[in-house]
């Protein structure tokens, strides 16, 4: 269950250009969190910036009670956050509906399902926690991780993911590492073979392309979307995402409680 808590900042490091990883001591959060969920962070004690900032849970270490977040400095709130090296952080969480971490049983196949995890830019952040869970479930062999970035320098989590035992494909916009082009091109290759499920997080244009590809290939999957949020708990109705309901009717769902993870086929781009 989500809580309002003061989590102790135990570490804060810049891990990429303008990308920071902050480590929090927050046992209750570590216990309750599911990959794809987020925490809602108050950035400062004054009223500017006013609203909390939603940041995905990047990594969880249940035994030590540690939780990590990984974020890109883009504005007021994240600038403030990157400046915190110790002290307490005011957070709400875990919030939202996370990824469904598939086991063979869930997909209904006897064998371990073949999964692909696709991350674009800072969208890789929540995927590391997902991969931690998949690694714990012991099916790293059947998971392919595809990571896209602007260039080699901006690549995130690829080394850490390899250490978890996953096979990683890399794509960069400028070809400075791996494939020269969009990461969805790598997914297209993977879709040549039978695929059970795809998880993705990244910029909206990438997710839009990816959802189109999955629909065409008839492969199910889940994507994590970003919407502007105020409350984070379903009360303010600000974070709407346009979806198709079961009957194909378009309606709004709320990214903070119905998401941020939605079924790939559900989202209307």
């Amino acid at each position, binding site marked *: 269950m989500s809580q309002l808590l003061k989590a102790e900042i135990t570490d804060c490091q810049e891990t990429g250009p303008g990308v920071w990883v902050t480590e929090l001591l927050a046992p209750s959060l570590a216990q309750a969190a599911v990959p794809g969920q987020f925490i809602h962070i108050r950035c400062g004690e004054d009223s500017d910036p006013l609203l909390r900032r939603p940041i995905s849970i990047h990594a969880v270490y249940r035994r030590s009670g540690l939780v990590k977040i990984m974020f890109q400095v883009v504005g007021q709130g994240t600038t403030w956050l990157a400046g915190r090296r110790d002290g307490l952080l005011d957070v709400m969480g875990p919030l939202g509906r996370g990824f469904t971490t598939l086991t063979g049983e869930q997909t209904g196949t006897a064998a371990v399902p073949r999964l692909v995890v696709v991350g674009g830019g800072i969208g890789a952040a929540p995927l590391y926690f997902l991969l931690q869970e998949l690694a714990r479930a012991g099916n790293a062999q059947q998971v392919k991780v595809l990571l896209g970035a602007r260039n080699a320098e901006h690549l995130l989590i690829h080394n850490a993911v390899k250490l978890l035992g996953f096979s990683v494909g890399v794509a960069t916009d400028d070809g400075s590492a791996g494939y020269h082009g969009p990461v969805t091109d790598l997914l297209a290759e993977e879709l040549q073979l039978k695929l059970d499920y795809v998880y993705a997080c990244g910029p909206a244009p990438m997710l839009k392309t990816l959802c189109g590809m999955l629909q065409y290939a008839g492969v199910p999957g889940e994507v994590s979307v970003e919407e502007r949020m105020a409350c984070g*708990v379903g009360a*303010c109705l600000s974070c709407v995402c346009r979806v198709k309901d079961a009957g194909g009717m378009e309606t709004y769902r709320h990214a903070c409680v119905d998401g941020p993870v939605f079924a790939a086929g559900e989202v209307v781009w």
Partner: protein
Amino acid sequence: MNTLVNLGGIVMKNPVTTASGTFGFGLEYQTYVNLQRLGAITVKGTTLKPRLGNPPPRIAETPSGMLNAIGLQNPGVERVAEEIMPQLAALGVPVIINIAGDTLEDYAQVARRLDGVTGVAGLEVNISCPNVKKGGIQFGSDPFTASEVTRAVKSATELPVIVKLSPNVTDLVVMAEAVAGAGADALSMINTLVGIAIDVDRRRPVLGNITGGLSGPAIRPVAVRAVWQVHRAMPLIPILGMGGIMTARDALEFILAGATAVAVGTGNFVNPRATLDVVEGIEHYMKEHSFNEISELVGLAQRDINKE
């Protein structure tokens, strides 16, 4: 110490409620707030038919404030009465339902439907909606239409009726007098200020709806002024004050200016426990300054000010 207040017929064990649209139906905040500690729960704007609301983005952050253009997304009065009220009624806390409509008849019908529903302690009439029949002019910006809405709602229900005033007018006192004259049992103020934010990179408005309502600490001085002016002109009508309340000290500004009760809105998003912090902070203040009755504080900051 007695913190009980009577807001035009709605009896609250303390003067703190939630601002409509910022606290869902209350249940969303149950994990963080013991709802039974609240003086009342004011729920989101309810209309006759369900509404989908505006296209996103629906919010933008501004200095010490936010713009919202939710567009009255709500499940409609029928589901509120049938599905949501039974859950809320079980809490034993007075529930105030904020109602809205495009026509006088809409308002009256919603009010009629809620009359007698268990747990509903009163209605708050949001008159900041465009009047479809009068070419989109807001009910809330014209004293005559505002009094018509008030009359329509009053005659459709036995419940106490609070009319919520918009600050986007030249003279708030004129509006207050109009709706009080039409039978409003209490007034609530303020609704949001109309604002726009521009995305300088994309060179277009941030909000899907272009304009939005400005709320949060940024507007507090405007809201306190509204309460002050109306209480000064009409000391007898109870006022529910709101606009940028984050802490007990903020709430006390409203009470000292003349509000009988206060509502926490945007503050909930920043601090989900804000309502309870306000309740406890007011109790603490009363103890510290030896006030036994909350009513002693209402309008106290006006006491030594000469009447013009």
